[in-house]
């Protein structure tokens, strides 16, 4: 079996080590500092973990559940906040109905 056949058969999107179609993508070595949004999401995740409400593995599971096209389109911490929200709803920490209503408000 060569690397090409093992690449995409059952692979999950986030599991991207060695995948052929990314091999010609240049790496952007610029630092790109974090935004206030990034730092806030990061801190929120740490607090939820510290309070035993959500593990880092649950965060990852939620990120991995994001469809491939959206995973690529969204920024790193944009994926995190979606995973955090989905996990908190699933675990009943915040109410889905309430979140939906607030998101619908203009």
């Amino acid at each position: 079996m060569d690397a090409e056949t093992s690449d995409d058969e059952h692979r999950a999107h986030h599991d991207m080590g060695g995948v052929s179609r990314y091999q010609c993508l240049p790496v952007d070595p610029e630092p790109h500092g974090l935004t206030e949004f990034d730092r806030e999401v990061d801190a929120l995740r740490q607090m939820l973990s510290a309070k035993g409400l959500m593990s880092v593995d649950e965060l990852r599971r939620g990120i991995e559940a994001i469809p491939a096209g959206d995973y690529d389109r969204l920024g790193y911490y944009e994926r995190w906040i979606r995973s955090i929200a989905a996990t908190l709803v699933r675990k009943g920490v915040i109410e889905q109905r309430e979140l939906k209503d607030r998101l619908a408000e203009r």
Partner: protein
Amino acid sequence: MSLPPGTPVRVKDDWPEARGPVHIRTPHYVRGRRGEVVRHLGDFPNPEDLAFARPAPERALYHVAFRPTDLFPDATGDDLVIEIFEHWLEVGA
């Protein structure tokens, strides 16, 4: 008892992500591939359970070395080392 350094192992050729929602830490590119135990890193709660907030028994975690050209014919590295949990490893093989 943990596997000593140098033990030949094969990573299970298993694809749980094709069967339903899972969270696994064994990258696709080593599934079914042969490597060698570098060392036992310790025992850690199984992330496959932690991700679903289930009770997570501790599992032995190993550093396992692979020959990069066994994984990618065009590899430019000389050695590839990955953390892999015991339940993904078959001994000998």
